[in-house]
């Protein structure tokens, strides 16, 4: 494999792994604010238990999110030096703004959120929870702005030629509010809220199934269900707005998403299917003319197909894009059905009566995670072969001085380290969930446990 393929694999691997965590932080951040807000409002200790429990889980998730996120900030420089020079003016400003406006807020107040229970009053603690949540939202703003600029560049001009060409900002506001940033930001935020809400739903569904911590699990489940239902529905609106933007700004990506080749014909919308890129044929269950209807409001209007683009200016992995896109749509639909059904059961006071429903909810944490990943793969693969749409090709964006064998070295290192991290993460997450909320004596237990097994400590005490 050449350095380009390896660098792309490494980037995809490290960003996909990283992206397990930030949506959970954003989503859990929202729920922490809700839970702690309920505690402050009602004074009910139950909500304090819930908040304390989820803060511990939040700390674990946040820790790995930060560690894997720092890698991302520097990977542009290490592996994509030409890209970094080309977009530094723009992409770099967004990253700098993220660091100073968002991450600093989040990481600063996190210390108080986790360790500050006995140091600050409940109001300041709640304030810290809000700051951490806001920090994570701001973080998403700058990252999505930077990525959206790659999808729909605006507010810049190109200076220099060839290797020395660079995009320079001409209009900061136009750069930040480029044509896709607002729609995609909302889509990403909602995806993150769903990731957090479904984590809470999953854990509490499992407690209810096991008949554990029922006094805490039931109200937590209901709160998370409200959040999940609202945002599953809103995601339908946000997702379709995002798709409209793709139709307008990135027609090659849209065509790849539905495996549409022929510009002179109407475009179908598939539920399930398969694209044969060689024969340029897409087969599957479809709504004929569905895409034409979505874009133009008319089932017979032709839509620009992949053939309208030069061979080297359109994505090659059409089937993969098609599949990840449809996976995302499928999951989004499923989440709406699932949450609405659960809400109906709730109004009939039968929410916790059906075991099968709780079993589905216990596993449901995987669904928004998969949809978030699939959505990003659609966005990023659909933009290929461009790294900055219409301006800079991915193949021209590499670090020229970094050799394939160096990337092999780092890629193997990342795979081993991240696999280890993931196993440890799941192990510790599981342990925390098994232990459950409540019981402030956890620390003492650990200490006693360590004293039992620890000769040094035994002597000391």
């Amino acid at each position, binding site marked *: 494999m050449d350095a380009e393929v390896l660098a792309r694999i490494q980037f995809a691997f490290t960003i996909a792994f990283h992206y397990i965590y930030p949506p959970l932080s954003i989503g859990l951040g929202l729920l922490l604010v809700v839970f702690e807000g309920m505690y402050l409002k009602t004074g009910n200790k139950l909500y304090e238990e819930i908040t304390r429990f989820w803060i511990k889980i939040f700390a674990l998730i946040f820790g790995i999110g930060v560690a*894997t996120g720092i890698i991302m900030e*520097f990977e542009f*420089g290490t592996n994509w*030096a030409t890209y*970094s020079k080309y977009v530094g003016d723009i992409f770099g400003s967004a990253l700098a703004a993220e*660091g100073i406006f968002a991450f600093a807020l989040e990481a*600063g107040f996190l*210390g108080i959120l986790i360790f500050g229970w006995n140091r600050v009053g409940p109001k300041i603690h709640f304030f810290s929870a809000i700051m951490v949540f806001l920090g994570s939202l701001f973080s998403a703003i700058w990252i999505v702005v930077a990525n959206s600029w790659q999808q729909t560049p605006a507010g810049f001009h190109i200076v220099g030629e060839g290797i020395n060409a660079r995009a320079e900002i001409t209009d900061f506001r136009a750069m930040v509010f480029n044509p896709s940033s607002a729609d995609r930001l909302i889509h990403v935020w909602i995806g993150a809220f769903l990731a957090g809400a479904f984590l809470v739903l999953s854990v509490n569904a499992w407690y209810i199934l096991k008949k554990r911590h029922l006094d805490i699990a039931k109200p937590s489940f209901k709160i998370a269900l409200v959040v999940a239902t609202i945002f599953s529905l809103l995601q339908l609106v946000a997702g379709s707005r995002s798709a409209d933007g793709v139709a307008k700004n990135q027609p090659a990506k849209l065509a790849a998403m539905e495996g549409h080749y022929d510009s002179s014909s109407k475009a179908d919308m598939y539920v399930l299917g398969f694209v044969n890129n060689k024969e340029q044929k897409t087969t599957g269950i479809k709504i004929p003319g569905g895409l034409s209807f979505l874009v133009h409001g008319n089932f017979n209007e032709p839509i620009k197909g992949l053939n309208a683009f030069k061979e080297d200016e359109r994505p090659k992995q059409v089937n993969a894009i098609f599949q990840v896109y449809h996976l995302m749509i499928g999951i989004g639909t499923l989440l709406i059905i699932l949450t609405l059904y659960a809400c109906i059961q709730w109004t009939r006071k039968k929410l916790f009566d059906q075991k099968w429903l709780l079993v589905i909810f216990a596993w449901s944490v995987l669904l928004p995670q998969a949809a978030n990943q699939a959505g990003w793969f659609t966005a990023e693969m659909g933009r290929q072969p461009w790294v900055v749409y219409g301006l800079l090709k991915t193949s021209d964006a590499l*670090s020229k001085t970094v050799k394939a064998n160096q990337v092999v070295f780092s890629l193997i290192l990342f795979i081993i380290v991240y696999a280890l991290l993931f196993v440890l993460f799941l192990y510790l997450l599981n342990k925390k969930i098994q232990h459950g909320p409540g019981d402030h004596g956890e*620390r003492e237990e650990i200490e006693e446990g360590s004293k039992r097994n620890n000769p040094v400590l035994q002597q000391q005490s």
Partner: protein
Amino acid sequence: MGSFLGIEYNVWWFLVFGAVITGYAILDGFDLGAGALHLFLNKEQSRRIALNAIGPVWDGNEVWLVIGGGAMFAGFPVAYAAIFSAFYIPFMIFLMGIIFRAVAIEFRSKEPMLWWRKTWDIVYCVSSVIIALSLGLMLGNVAYGLPLNAEKEFAGNNYSFFHPFTIMVAITTLALFMMHGAIYLTMKTENRLYTKLHLLANNFTVFFVLSFVITTLYTLLYIPHLCDYFKTHPVSFIIPILMILAIANIPRQIKKGKYRYAFLSSAITIALLLIMVAIEVFPYLLYSAGAPENSITVYNAAASAKTMKILLVIALIGTPLVAIYTVFVFWTFKGKVKLDETSY
């Protein structure tokens, strides 16, 4: 390029970038140092206290690294691209250190087993040492220079980074952080652990002074291009003098048991050291050893004037905010460490 108060934007940004790196070195410096000396503490209780002394603040300290990375990417994209692709392998090792350190701090307390905790103690200590050494190695290389081609890209190999000078800078950085970390921990501890850290702080001060003197002598004798500015501008000699006074004040304050002043002195030492490095390298961001005309400077690596202006506005708004949260968090956790149910 426009200017503000008679100083060009890119020079301003060099100053801002330098300030961020200094902030990073002072703040993350003490928690990296605390990590590097972690294994010198041998009781479980002592290790827990040491870990909780940095617990609520280390994440916030690391933010400065992220801000520094963003500041360089945005303000000097050419330097960001060249430096990180040049340091590919050392930087990957540095990043692994960052990952392992973060998870070691987070994971250690989650299981009571002795083997589990000892393993994470070792990971925490080794990764802190690796981070300190690789930061020093990179700083040394930036100051000493690397082979660059006409396209301002790295033209060396993995052995180019290792030179007696860069290795000495790496060791000096480690020693500096260990001293700084030991002093920080003495402020946060009591009783026997405090006595132990008092001794460690003394030893690391000696370690730092020795490595600093050797590195300085080597620079004076063998690396003339780093001394040019001081030769031609005798007034600037005030900075090394102030630094020597600050260093001399550290053992004095330690002896008196005034750790706050000792910590302040070591923070000032770090700042003056970096100011000295900045004076030595300016206007170079990465000196091209062998072919100085290929060097990357604040002039040829800078973003556009418009971006510089935007960045300066961002820094003007952002820095006071970050300073406010930093002070607030440190103030919340001031005083000696008390373990409770939320501690690591």
